[in-house]
């Protein structure tokens, strides 16, 4: 049954059809295809391509619905079935919507009536629990918001719904996005689908694990210091962190406002890109969202079959030297070096580039993020919403509500940030960190003037064991070294699986990080799309569901 979910490989033809790719928003259901029977296809039914191509789940869903190969209800059913099957092992969801099937049926009726479909029609999207959803609880993984349901949808969620997407549920995270393992959730620990004794990364661990285990098609995460990219790397999925300002933050519970972005997870670069395209654009409810026009990102997804042998000829790639230093696992280093070779084969010109300020990013990040979080989390006082601890006196009420509501990592960062902003310490901490941020931004700018794209590992290691770093916050902070600089510079970055290291039953995926110039997500998606299509001998389906999903 589950095999029906995997669209036939022949759908790569679908992707090659530029009209379908570019104009699908205005397509009407293809009635000429409606008489075709639903094909319960498996990979063996299909002509085997020389390179098994990563596909777009979003586009194949659309194709299946429009061609009436599958109904939205069938699709939703099978994903929900797998969700139920895998969830006891993974615990990636804090809340699963009970209206998924109803929405799918509604969509099927629309298809029956030949009504126009949104570009995300029938796409099952999981949403990180720090992103507000009007009909589902949104807790940010914190006790302080236990049972809280917002009165509004985040702009990103609203856009997904308007385009026909179905929100499957809310995924687990480190409380308020503060952590790198998802162990910091107040409610549950999420496991890595590649090895359930390991962490999925974080803070968007639930969103990454859910996509990796095909519990949903795509998902939303948030990335303040690497919270989309590092779990993408740990879980072997594609993670896309857009330029700061590309996607509205309205409805994203703020951790560090000047660094937070909503990002996308998908099984393929195309999926992450299509989802990003859907949620991008200026929002009058977010003053920090950019008014810059959003180019059609889908135009970047050119099928490999239509390209020559050196499709990326002339592209200048900079491998950041400082990211291959000591402290990075050799398996990770060699996977990234192999990826660099692969890019060379595709025609890129790869050289090493030095960002001397790279190591300054981590301390600057932790000062700025903590400072902003100490302020952003002040609103959780138990007065208007969330958990309140009754007390006889006002200050006790604040103290008790916050002491009981927040977990230890959140408290640690609030204290750090409060300290950094205090009179007499501000200049040496916050102000200095802002100066470092400027230096980092300039050095990235200089490197990106010389190169089209910079590459690095997404994390210094592959997924580690649950509990391994839980009591060593500094070790956990150090794991963010690859990603925090990108947030400080506000740049877009794409992480996609590029290889494996040993570990677990089937090896552990390693992610390659590609960093682009501001608002140049298109280039990252184009390169990433070609990279994943041409990557040899790699299959990023985790062992947990490998029996069910053949690819």
């Amino acid at each position: 049954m589950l095999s029906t979910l995997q669209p036939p490989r022949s759908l790569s033809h679908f992707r090659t059809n530029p009209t379908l790719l570019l104009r699908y928003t205005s397509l009407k259901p293809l009635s000429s295809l409606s008489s075709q029977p639903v094909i319960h296809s498996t990979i063996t039914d299909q002509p085997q391509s020389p390179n098994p191509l990563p596909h777009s789940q979003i586009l194949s869903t659309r194709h299946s619905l429009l061609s009436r190969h599958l109904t939205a209800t069938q699709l939703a059913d099978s994903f929900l079935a797998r969700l139920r099957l895998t969830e006891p092992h993974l615990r990636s969801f804090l809340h699963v919507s009970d209206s998924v099937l109803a929405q799918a049926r509604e969509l099927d009726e629309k298809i029956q009536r030949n009504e126009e479909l949104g570009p995300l029609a029938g796409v099952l999207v999981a949403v990180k629990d720090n992103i507000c959803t009007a009909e589902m609880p949104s807790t940010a993984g914190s006790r302080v918001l236990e049972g809280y349901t917002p009165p509004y949808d985040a702009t990103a969620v609203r856009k997904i719904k308007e385009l026909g997407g179905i929100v499957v549920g809310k995924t687990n995270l480190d409380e308020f996005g503060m952590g790198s393992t998802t162990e910091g959730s107040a409610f549950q620990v999420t496991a890595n689908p590649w090895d359930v004794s390991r962490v999925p990364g974080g803070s968007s661990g639930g969103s990454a694990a859910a996509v990796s285990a095909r519990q949903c098609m795509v998902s939303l995460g948030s990335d303040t210091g690497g919270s989309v990219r590092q779990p993408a790397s740990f879980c072997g999925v594609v993670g896309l962190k857009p330029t700061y300002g590309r996607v509205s933050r309205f409805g994203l519970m703020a951790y560090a406002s000047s660094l937070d972005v909503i990002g996308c997870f998908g099984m393929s670069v195309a999926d992450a890109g299509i989802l990003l395209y859907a949620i991008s654009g200026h929002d009058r409810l977010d003053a920090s969202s950019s008014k810059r026009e959003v180019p059609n990102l889908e135009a970047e997804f050119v099928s490999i079959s239509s390209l020559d042998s050196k499709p990326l000829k002339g592209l200048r790639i900079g491998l950041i030297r400082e990211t291959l230093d000591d402290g990075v696992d050799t398996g990770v280093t060699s996977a990234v070096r192999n990826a660099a070779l692969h890019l060379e084969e595709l025609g890129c010109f790869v050289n090493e580039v030095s960002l001397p300020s790279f190591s300054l990013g981590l301390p600057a990040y932790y000062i700025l993020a903590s400072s902003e979080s100490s302020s952003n989390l002040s609103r959780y006082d138990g007065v208007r919403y969330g958990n309140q601890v009754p007390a006889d006196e006002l200050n006790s009420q604040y103290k008790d509500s916050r002491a009981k509501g927040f977990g230890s990592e959140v408290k640690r960062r609030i204290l750090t940030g409060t300290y950094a902003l205090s009179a007499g310490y501000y200049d040496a901490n916050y102000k200095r960190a802002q100066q470092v941020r400027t230096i980092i931004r300039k050095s990235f700018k200089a490197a990106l003037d010389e190169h089209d794209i910079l590459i690095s590992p997404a994390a210094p290691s592959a997924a580690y064991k649950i509990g391994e770093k839980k009591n060593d916050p500094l070790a956990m902070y150090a794991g963010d070294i690859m990603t925090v600089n990108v947030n400080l510079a506000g740049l877009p970055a794409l992480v996609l699986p590029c290889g494996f290291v040993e570990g677990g039953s089937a090896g552990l995926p390693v992610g390659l990080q590609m960093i682009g110039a501001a608002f140049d997500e298109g280039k990252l998606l184009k390169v990433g799309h070609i990279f994943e299509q041409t990557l040899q001998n790699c299959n990023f389906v985790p062992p947990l569901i490998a029996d069910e999903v053949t690819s």
Partner: protein
Amino acid sequence: MASTIFRSLHTNPCLLHPTALLRRKDVILYCTMRSAQTQTAATPDKVKPQVKVAPNIQNKTLEKASKDYEAVIGIETHVQLNTLTKAFCSCPYNYGSPPNTSVCPVCMGLPGALPVLNMKVIESAIKVGLSLNCKLSFNSKFDRKQYFYPDLPKGYQISQFDVPIATGGYIDVDLPLEYGGGHRKFGITRVHMEEDAGKLLHSEGGSYSQESYERLRLTLSLFWILFVYFMQVDLNRAGVPLLEIVSEPDMRTGIEAAEYAAELQRLVRYLGVSNGNMQEGSLRCDVNISVRPIGNIEFGTKVEIKNLNSFSSVSRAIDYEISRQVLLHSQGEDKEIVQETRLWEEGAQKTVTMRKKEGLADYRYFPEPDLPGVFLTQDYVDGIRNTLPELPETKRRRYEKMGLSMQDVLFLANDVNVAEFFDTTITKGADVKLATNWIMGDIAAYMKNEKLTIDEIKLSPKELAELIASIKDGTISGKIGKEILFELLAKGGTVKGLIEEKDLIVDPAEIEKMVEKVVSENPKQLEQYRGGKTKLQGYFAGQVMKLSKGKANPGLLNKILLEKLNAKS
């Protein structure tokens, strides 16, 4: 929706005494400087320093001592801007709306909500900055000021810290004549933009003592305690834009301070950026005051006074506080003056300690990351400068040049609507002095009796000008003029129409007949007149007017009467 989100804050209100400040008051909402002046006039008698000394000794000591000391006064004023929507969201704000009916995720500080600046706030700030002769910051920003309080939904206030939108200005003030008059120039340190907080309300409208609370707690279920007793938060006001205007410590007396505040009120009303109403809290003054021996350069210990909701309370609270501090100084107990916030108690007419400052509060300011910087262009500023109306100071100087007395000048320029009424009347050709007299006299009296503003009366400046002209050219008598004025005030209409309605006699032949009748019926008086007693003309005129039942045109009447009286001489 809001009601499901808002929960009562269960906290003992006895421990939250500052909330007394925030309780709403139902007060009639009009206030002019004139009434403030008359109130302040009573000040010196009313204020009896409440110190433990026999009153007469105390007064003597004070009188003597106050010659040796001077007070240094600075004022922080919060002006609520009357923008259609709040500073960072699209909620409207209307004073007196039911609690939590004008709120949204942004001003309630819900998770995920973000502020977006209302550009009208910048415009108003620039208007005020320019009018206060300030230097504008073309590159400013917002900052977060952080503290915990139930009326502050986000746990921080969006404000401006180190780069306020305007700095280094001054304001010109004319002191009321009752206090000797005179012109003053007070420095303005800075003007910055920020958002207002909500209000705390007692659910039952009253405060409870500790004992009654304990009784309740023993007898009722927890639910009832929550329901009946506890304080609630009203966030209607949260996020309403404010300008904070900080003065230099340039004032020396309560009157100067009150007049400074009154001039700010006048200014924001002239500019149309705020209703400036103190009772509603649209204009709030916090006064900083210290006393030092004359000749000292160093300032004494500064005390802040809050809860001043009229100009007279500003003036009286300061005078009280000066006496208190001078007395302590003169008794060598100046160590008793500590840096603290004191509350003005209107009933007791004294200031009392509200809270002592325990070191400086650390608000951990940092730049607001949710809002972009505020960048102004010269064109934008010039555009606003060109739309500025004539300001109170300019108006007063112009009226002075028109030959009006200072008293007239201060009256007319006090209220922007009165000034506009006056200006329009003059533009329509009315005599300046006569217009002033009518406005300050009968019209002002009528407005006061009927509790109307000049906008609400039915009389238009055009008709006032017409009325003045009609009296001047003798079409109607002053007496009839007054009658017509009151009809115009109450019912409206035109001067011409009312003259017609009154059936006034303007036909010379008819008047001539009446004159002849009166002259022939009073031969004795006529003889006396012709014998040189020309004052009797008034007598004849009165008789004719009486005969016409007051309807004869006085100009014509006098002209014809003179002709007749002097005819055969």
